């Protein structure tokens, strides 16, 4: 089907455009826009289970942000999301960058390593969570076993049961799971850099660190924009790894609690401990959504500015 530039507004053309545009708009409205708007509306009501009660205005929002019961839980979880964001930014995205640089230089067996680094990304998060839970088991997990066999008995810990190590363990498991993704994106970004730029820098006698810092890092800025924004969104929506490895409660005693877990517990209830409050859950989800949209947009705009055209 060809539409010439001279007569773009024929009925046929319009129908064709409508045919292409309408299905995705309907789909998006039905499965994305409508649920978001209805969650927003739900947040203004009192709920008895899933039966809607009376309109309560901003009460649910106030409870979530300032209420004596809910607010300490929410802010504690928020702080853990921030920790996760910072730590993953360094370990996952930073690690990904250096792995990409190593692969870029095509060392012996780089094709194998390129695949090996990406394989965990393909695995289901549930599998990765259970795997790491087994690794970290205090009595028969391979991590403590390895420490015992090296004679480092005092380093062995009940990793997921110790409030000082549990969150770190989750972050490491997550980084192991996803480090292949930033590595691959950065590798693609590096391969887009014209080789003569790097060659010229080398001829000028830069060392490895200067090359990375002054040439490669600025030139992979578009990759950085994508990866930082995605990580920001991922870190605040973090749910699967904590859910699989420590359960809905953010065990032990809230030291691994994140907003995703708080939302689930509040909206749907935790069978073995708490009651559900759908209104408050919706309020939390709405706030989280607004927070992510606003900050992710700001972050993207800021990161875009440092991208260089070449």
């Amino acid at each position: 089907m060809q539409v010439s530039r001279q007569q773009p507004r024929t009925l046929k053309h319009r129908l064709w455009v409508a045919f292409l545009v309408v299905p995705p708009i309907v789909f998006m409205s039905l499965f994305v826009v409508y649920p978001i708007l209805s969650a927003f509306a739900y947040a203004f009501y009192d709920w008895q289970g899933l039966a809607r009660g009376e309109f309560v205005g901003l009460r649910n929002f106030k409870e979530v942000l300032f209420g004596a019961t809910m607010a300490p839980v929410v802010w504690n979880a928020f702080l853990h999301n921030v920790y996760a964001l910072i730590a993953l930014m360094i370990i996952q995205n930073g690690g990904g960058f250096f792995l990409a640089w190593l692969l870029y230089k095509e060392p012996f067996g780089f094709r194998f390593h390129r695949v090996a680094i990406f394989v965990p990304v393909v695995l289901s998060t549930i599998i990765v969570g259970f795997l790491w839970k087994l690794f970290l088991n205090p009595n028969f997990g391979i991590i403590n076993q390895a420490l015992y066999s090296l004679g480092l008995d005092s380093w062995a810990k009940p990793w997921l049961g110790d409030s000082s190590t549990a969150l770190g363990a989750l972050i490491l498991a997550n980084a192991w799971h996803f480090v292949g993704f930033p590595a691959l994106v950065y590798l693609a970004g590096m391969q887009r850099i014209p080789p003569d730029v790097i060659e010229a820098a080398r001829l000028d006698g830069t060392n490895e660190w200067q090359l990375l810092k002054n040439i490669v890092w600025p030139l992979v800025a578009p990759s950085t924009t994508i990866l930082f924004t995605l990580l920001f969104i991922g870190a605040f929506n973090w749910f699967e790894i904590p859910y699989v490895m420590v359960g809905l409660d953010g065990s032990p005693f809230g030291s691994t609690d994140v907003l995703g877990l708080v939302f689930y517990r509040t909206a749907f209830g935790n069978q073995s401990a708490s009651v559900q409050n759908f209104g408050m859950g919706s309020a939390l989800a709405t706030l989280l959504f607004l927070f992510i949209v606003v900050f992710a947009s700001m972050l993207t705009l800021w990161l875009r500015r440092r991208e260089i055209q070449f």
Partner: protein
Amino acid sequence: MKLTRRILMGAAAGSFLLSGTAAMAQTELTFWSWRQEDKAFYQDIIKKFQAKEPGITVKFETYAPENYQTILSTALAAGRGPDVIQVRAYGNLESIATPGYLLALDKQNVPELANFPEPALAAETLRSDGKVYAVPFAMQAQLVVYNKKIFKDNGLNPPKTWDELMALAKALKAKNINPFSNGTATAWQNETIVGGLLSSMLGKEFEADIVSGKANFTDPRFVNALAKLKDISQYFAPNFTGVDYPSSQQLFVAGRAAMFAGGSYEVANFKNQNPTLDLGVFPAPVLKEGDQALIATYYDGGYAVNAKTDKKDAALKFVRFLATPEYGTAFTNTLKNLSPIKGIKIEDSITQDVAKLAENSMSYLMLVRFRYQEPSGSVLLQSNVQKMLAGQQTPEQAAAEINKGIATYYKPFQK
């Protein structure tokens, strides 16, 4: 000739009548449950029910436990849902009974309610209107399950007092045997451990005082019991703060620990996984000789009728059947879970023991009394005991935190 004609006509009329009743008989009930693993049992029960009520057929459908409440309340909110519903108890019951989704049951429409003890009915009663909304199906208890073989091999008997328990645990540990397989990494384990080990030290009187507001959770009885728990935790699984619920079950099933503080529902599960296990149960040890030994009991849930069903009579007939001692006996003996129905005949010896111990019991306190509002007593108890056992707060601090949380909504504590 005439006679044959009459016979033929009679036969025709008869068959017409028969087919008429058969057509009328097709009342099909749907029955929802989260107990996929009990499907065979329920199919069997439905057959027995149909033998009595040939007019009614029952379709049994199950959903995954973690999604059940959500699927059920969505269906009910949309004005649909099954005719007969397996529901949970206490706070979870309220979330579907309060909006009026369930039919209120009384001695008129279900005379068999007389077969149940008062606390069982209380578990399925809405606090706001005092009406019963479901026929209870199982009583659970928190107590101590022990490995009889390990006890016998080491010349030990179930302890009566707390000091005996401490001495016994010490003796086992000296022989390199794990006294308890319990861990604390899964939050709700902590609540089961408290119920299984501390009930006798808390006592019925403490529960009554909490309910009346004469005492709160900073009471010395509660604080001292928590201190004893901290004491015994040195005999839990190695690295117990990192041992989650499945690992602690496995440790016990493998015969690598002598005791498991937890639910009576685990006995059948343990035996299924390792039929060679010889198990026994004992109640929480008492502080001093002569005190009453208690287990902590609660009710799992019940069978309710959808308020909007157009097959109310048939649904009530089925629910009444699920309230008979005949059903209770089958339930108890097949599923090895204790039915609360009076006058059942129990075959299994451990279930008999649990039933006998249940004669002296207190409530599984936080679930029965404080799981209606946030922060629920369960949330508070689980995280604060977990923190205390990790050595990050004292029993006094744990008790104070629990009390503070409950006092935000519990009137008797606000005086």
